[in-house]
């Protein structure tokens, strides 16, 4: 099992995907770390994020280059995507959200799963897990980093 890291930044907004990790038919991702912060000028802006499973893959977006924690490892099989895209079809935030995060823009949020308690994607290219900006009082730049095993 290898561990990979990826990051992306985008402006916060309403129902915007920041970064999404999609499975392949044979490989699933196990997300074990998430960091959310902002490099924008500090301001009191309420933001809300959710980590959600999706059942229909995103269309478009920018394929992000992940980095293995061990440089000798091969490239990741799961696909990390960010940027402007047609969002994947997510499960509902209220009933299925894996993490719900309400955050002041000034703050930096870190979540770490204990071994064996990762957020696991289902196999299949339609399946994955995304970090979504659900609501925001402004459009500050949001920086997100994700770490996963596969």
């Amino acid at each position: 099992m290898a561990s990979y890291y990826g990051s992306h930044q985008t402006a916060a907004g309403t129902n915007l995907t920041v970064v999404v990790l999609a499975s392949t038919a044979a490989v699933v991702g196990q997300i074990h770390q998430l960091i959310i912060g902002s490099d924008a000028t500090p301001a009191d802006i309420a933001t809300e994020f959710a980590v959600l499973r999706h059942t229909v893959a995103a269309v478009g977006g920018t394929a992000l280059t992940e980095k293995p924690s061990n440089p000798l490892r091969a490239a990741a099989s799961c696909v990390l995507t960010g940027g402007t895209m047609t969002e994947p079809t997510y499960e509902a935030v209220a009933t299925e959200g894996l993490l719900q995060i309400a955050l002041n823009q000034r703050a930096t949020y870190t979540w770490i799963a204990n071994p064996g308690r990762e957020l696991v994607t289902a196999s299949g290219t339609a399946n994955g897990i995304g970090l979504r900006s659900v609501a925001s009082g402004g459009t500050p730049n949001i920086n997100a980093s994700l770490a996963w095993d596969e």
Partner: protein
Amino acid sequence: MAAHRMGKAAGYISVVSPDHPPIERDTLQCVHCGGHWSVEPGSGRQRGFCTMCNGPHCGREHCWECVPFRKKLDQMARRAALAEALGLVK
């Protein structure tokens, strides 16, 4: 530092801000949906415990029925494979 820590936690969150001391919370993981939540004593949120899965669940409506999240992942994988076989996804 404001911290709520517990035994057998499934995860950990920290929030660092210039406006207040660092906040630390342990998280538990729902045995049915796989989601994490931070433990907030006195929050009033009703959680549950599944005696078949031998673990806590998040208390959301659909999680009161026992469907282990590994089984849910299998169901999602089967649906994706079927959709792919039928040509419903690219």
